[in-house]
């Protein structure tokens, strides 16, 4: 039986400009959220889901969704923009499994050799520690392994298509660039990238090195913040005969947050094609 995407279109349209709201997903535990990124340069396509035309004349660099869908298996196929149906896909068909409560991004992109393909990524929508931001980098470009630089220093090293790396870092605006692994000469950027506290920012390196059209695409998932654990509103007063105990107990140091990224991890994405 076909599952129609049209039935859920109205739900998807409630989302704010491509920004997922995991709170909504949490309330409807039997659904999943799916975004679709078009990352094949110079190619307008149609996207079929379970044989139904879902994205018509989908252009490169566009992010669609998130769609809120019942958990289950879905068949995705990408065709030329003038195709009559999903019968002659240029990518796929591939079957993806959406688990209840999950958040996913399917990408149409180039593999390392420049052939159009599809990848299916699971987005980490777990809570982000208070005062931090999550950054995920995905290599979906026709290019060799790369390093991702922040302020000129590598924060992710030796990332290959279609792998991803995730790290937790301080929020703020970083100067992001991508370089061939082991080098610092940018092949993409540098470009300012704002990482907001309590959000997950997913950056895709896409395009083709050979064709000179490498670029970054960005997806943001909001609402993953945590609250401070406590409000320590007391310290020894200036008039006080400050015993060590009171000072030690009450003084709250201003602690500069480390600028270094923590907890970097790299894992392979699940290639769906």
């Amino acid at each position, binding site marked *: 039986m076909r599952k129609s995407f049209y039935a859920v279109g109205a739900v998807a349209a409630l989302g704010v400009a491509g920004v997922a709201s995991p709170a909504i997903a949490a309330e409807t535990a039997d659904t999943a959220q799916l975004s679709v990124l078009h990352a094949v340069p110079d190619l307008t396509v149609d996207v079929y889901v379970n044989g139904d035309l879902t994205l018509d004349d989908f252009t490169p660099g566009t992010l669609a969704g998130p769609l809120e869908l019942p958990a289950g298996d879905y068949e995705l196929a990408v065709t030329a923009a003038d195709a009559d149906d999903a019968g002659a896909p240029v990518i796929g068909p591939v079957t993806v499994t959406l688990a209840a409560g999950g958040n996913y991004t399917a990408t149409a992109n180039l593999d390392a050799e420049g052939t159009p393909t599809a990848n299916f990524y699971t987005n980490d929508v777990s809570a982000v520690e208070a005062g931090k931001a999550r950054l995920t980098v995905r290599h979906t470009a026709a290019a060799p392994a790369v390093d991702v630089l922040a302020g000129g220093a590598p924060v992710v090293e030796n990332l290959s298509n279609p792998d991803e790396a995730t790290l937790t870092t301080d929020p703020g605006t970083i100067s992001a660039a991508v370089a061939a692994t082991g080098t610092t000469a940018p092949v993409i950027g540098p470009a300012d990238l704002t990482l907001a506290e309590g959000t997950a920012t997913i950056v895709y390196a896409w395009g083709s090195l050979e064709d000179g059209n490498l670029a*970054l695409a960005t997806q943001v998932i909001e609402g993953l913040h945590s609250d401070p654990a406590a409000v*320590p509103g007391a310290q020894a007063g200036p008039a006080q005969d400050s015993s060590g105990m009171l000072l030690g107990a009450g003084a709250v140091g201003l602690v500069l947050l480390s600028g270094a990224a923590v907890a970097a991890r790299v894992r392979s994405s699940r290639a769906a094609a």
Partner: protein
Amino acid sequence: MPAPDGSLDAGAGQGTSAPAAAIPGGTSAAGITLRPATAGQAEVAPPPVSLDIEGTDIQVDVIDVGIAEDDEMEIPTSFYEAGWYRYGPAPGASSGNAVLAAHIDIGTEQMPFARLKDVAIGTEITVGRADAEPVRYRVTDVRNEPKAALDTDEIFRRDGDHQLVIVTCGGEWLSDRADYEDNVVLTATPL
């Protein structure tokens, strides 16, 4: 997988078009949200710079603060400054709680925020903002909440009706724990 007839060769476009060129956002015919996958610009709300609670000594500067290393809210060291939790809504926001916090002085309790617990319901509060009109609030609640049971989910909520929440310490000094028993939590709604 290989393109069936080579028509999908990504090299066909000579790479002259920038993939990230602006694409108008909108919705597809099926009602699916579409947008260019480019980095969004963060909304910057005017930050608070001063706090004045009518009829009290609490007339202090406000600085923005974040998280201390122990996962607690960072608090200014000066007794004459309040910290605004910069990751949550700002005073004057349309939704969520703007949270300010400051220290009281242990034992002596002579500094301005030691009197937060005595602020009367209905008192007017003015928050000055950088490059924006001040915003005014009226106090609706002042209470002591045991630190062990502080409802941080409610205090730091980022959605729902907008309020101003001001937090400091209060209640009994517990020498065995070297800490005050309570937080004093003042809540005010926009005027």
